């Protein structure tokens, strides 16, 4: 039975999509890429694409709403996204997340192409194989070729699943930059650096200990080709955990030039504390960091001209109209706005200044990466985004 509420949610979601599209057309003159079908691209056979292509995925582990981004009153918060990145890419205006709206489990779902159902706050690996495992196993890539840079302790298991025939041996190396900064500061006051150690905002009352890592601080410094002292000195020039993450990601790009890099940002999730001004600052910083990532791609010879960049919030935030929520603060109601987000893709072969308004899902990212890079994400549930292939 197509119930009333489902229809309503679907209509709202479509309206969000339409609003974004119309606004973008006005702003950028973007062409509307009207896909009336969702044909899957023919699956690539593993290895048929040599590793001429690279991919970087940037997710926001803290959604944002149209009012603070795409709508006229929000556009001042995302100038780089609107004026620099959108004209160079294809925007999917209607990405519907049908899974659990918690950041770790939703990011894990993005990385597996399957809606994971584990406890968002549990330190467990995804149940289905991750994109990193498909990539490394199918293409026989070394561990240095797939990395995750993540903000909070909760993400330390996201690099690999506990699925049979896969697992850590094929996973990505996960870097939690704050862990290492904390270690480096062990004998010092953290006062000057405290802003960089901000952990999970989703459960603001619970502060997990920043735990040790399987690799030591010295090994981490070696990974970055940097002394511990220089790492700390550089950290002092940064203003947020996401800036620290980006700094580490850029070092990894220069040192290892991984073909698959996944960066999760979370500054804007300060919204959970209920301070609108801090949420807006987080959006503005994320906008700036996305531009910086794209510019880094263009300036690094190993990446320029061969890298696809995917940018997407893991989901949205509650509407002001949802009685059970508290507006921008949380993503607890499961309403249409909190489930409807967007995806921007840029890179060689990806149509510029285009808008796709058919509904897609976050689960489609992994199959799309598989088609682009040449591996077979056989257990993922999504479909490749034909507009990008």
């Amino acid at each position, binding site marked *: 039975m197509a*119930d*009333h*509420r*489902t229809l309503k*949610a679907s209509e709202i979601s479509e309206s969000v999509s339409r609003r974004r599209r119309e606004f973008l057309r006005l702003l950028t003159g973007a062409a509307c890429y009207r896909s009336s079908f969702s044909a899957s691209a023919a699956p690539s056979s593993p290895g048929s694409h040599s590793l001429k292509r690279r991919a970087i995925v940037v997710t926001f582990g803290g959604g944002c709403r149209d009012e603070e981004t795409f709508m006229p*009153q929000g556009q001042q918060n995302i100038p780089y996204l609107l004026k620099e990145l959108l004209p160079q890419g294809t925007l999917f205006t209607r990405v519907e997340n*049908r*899974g*659990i*709206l918690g950041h770790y489990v939703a990011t894990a779902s993005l990385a597996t192409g399957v*809606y994971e*159902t*584990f*406890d968002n*706050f*549990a330190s467990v690996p995804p149940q289905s194989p991750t994109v990193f495992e498909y990539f490394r196993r199918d293409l026989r890539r070394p561990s240095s070729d797939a990395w995750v840079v993540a903000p909070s302790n909760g993400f330390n298991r996201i690099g690999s699943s506990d699925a049979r025939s896969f697992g850590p041996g094929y996973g990505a190396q996960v870097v939690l930059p704050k862990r290492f900064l904390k270690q480096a500061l062990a004998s010092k006051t*953290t006062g000057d650096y*405290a*802003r*960089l*150690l*901000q*952990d999970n*905002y*989703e*459960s*603001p*009352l*619970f*502060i*997990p200990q920043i735990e040790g890592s399987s690799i030591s601080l010295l090994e981490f410094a070696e990974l970055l080709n940097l002394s511990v002292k220089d790492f700390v000195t550089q950290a002092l020039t940064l203003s947020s955990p996401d800036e620290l993450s980006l700094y580490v990601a850029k070092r990894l790009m220069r040192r290892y030039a991984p073909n698959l890099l996944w960066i999760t940002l979370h500054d804007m999730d*300060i919204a*959970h*504390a*209920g*301070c*609108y*001004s*801090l949420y*807006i600052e987080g959006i503005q910083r994320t906008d700036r960091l996305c531009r910086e990532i794209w510019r880094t791609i263009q300036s690094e010879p190993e990446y320029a001209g061969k890298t696809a960049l995917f940018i997407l919030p893991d989901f949205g935030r509650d509407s*002001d*109209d949802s*009685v*059970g929520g*508290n*507006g*921008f*603060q*949380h993503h607890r*109601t*499961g309403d249409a706005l909190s489930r409807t987000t967007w995806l921007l893709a840029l890179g060689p072969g990806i149509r510029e200044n285009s808008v796709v308004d058919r509904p897609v899902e976050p689960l489609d990212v992994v199959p799309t990466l598989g088609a682009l890079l040449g591996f077979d994400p056989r257990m993922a549930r999504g479909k490749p985004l034909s507009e990008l292939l």
Partner: protein
Amino acid sequence: MLLQIQVKHFKDYPPEARRVAASHLELLRKLPPAFMPLLLQQVQDYDWRFPAERRDIDRQLTFLASLSDADRRRLLTGFERLQLPTRLMDVKWASSPVEFSEQLSNYLWSTHQIDAFHEASSNYLNAVLAALPHQPPAAPRLGIAVIGKGVERNSYPLFSKFRPHGMHFTNVNPANGLKTLLAHVAERAAAHPAPFDHWYIDGGPAEPVSNPLLTSISYPGLEPHRLALLRKINSAINNGIAGPKELLSLLHRLQPEEIGFDAAGQNGAIIGRFATSLLTSGSGTQIFSTSFVQWTTRELWRRAQPLTILARFAPRQRQRSMNELLSGDEQTVEMDAPGSLIDADMGAFYMWRDQQRLSGAEKASFLIWFEDHPEAFAVSPSLPPNTESNARIDMHWLLAQTRR
């Protein structure tokens, strides 16, 4: 499947709650297992609930009891259709409905049934409202938000979300503004005397209040309780509590006495319980005064459904790392007045939205004033929407618009 609840399941409820639950035993036995504990969750705190909440619980019970078995089953069919594991379909949850609610929520999300649950809840509440509509309030409701304390100059465009709904005033004489507003809400309390119908909330030190029927809560006034709560949280974390869910469960079970509230008197117990819930259920209320004020107004409109709220936002502390914020070390706290103004502008909008959800919304008024500045905004049946005025007015004139 129905559950054979017994009176013994209510033995740990406080007296009034036990009485209410026991007197509806037959009805409770006929309710679906996914629904019954949620209703009991409301009943369990009956002794400490505001009068308006008690009326709502009584209305629900009366309505459900008035239905034939077939009509009740039809109404609650959405709950009946939820696929629950046997561990959640147990009579024991009548004794611990809060824990049931936590586990049910986790289960529904993980099995993709949360949308079906929301639909079932919405259908149920709409049916109750249609059968037994809320009575109009004793007087038109009035919300007042005072924002921007401590801000000398501002470039942020204030009231932008309010604009389509009322009139923007740019030439208000700010002299004695706060004093006038406080006197006005005290007069309303005297004119419409009822417990918990008139509130004054302050994010900074509260101004003196003369009328005992104007209930006052301030962020600094709760400081000993806030710090006691933060110490409990730190202690739980240092003792290795498993995770956020376990911490939230601990907070939900926390009694007001454990963080220093005095339970003396019925009204004192209700306020202590309410203030405890603000600190344990709100997110950010423990550390940011702007979040505290906004959440308090939301909970007051939703729960106490008062006639009057005057909420004054004050500067909150600057953002620090969460470890520092929770340490309770507030000796060297820097304030962020400009950021707090932006928070308060949005907080005031949410305060108005929540007011609009109550009965009598079409006659309600809302006033927002940039403290000590000539800028204000008013939403009232007597004022045209989406308009602006630069006429020289004072706070008395503005308040008069809310009386028409």
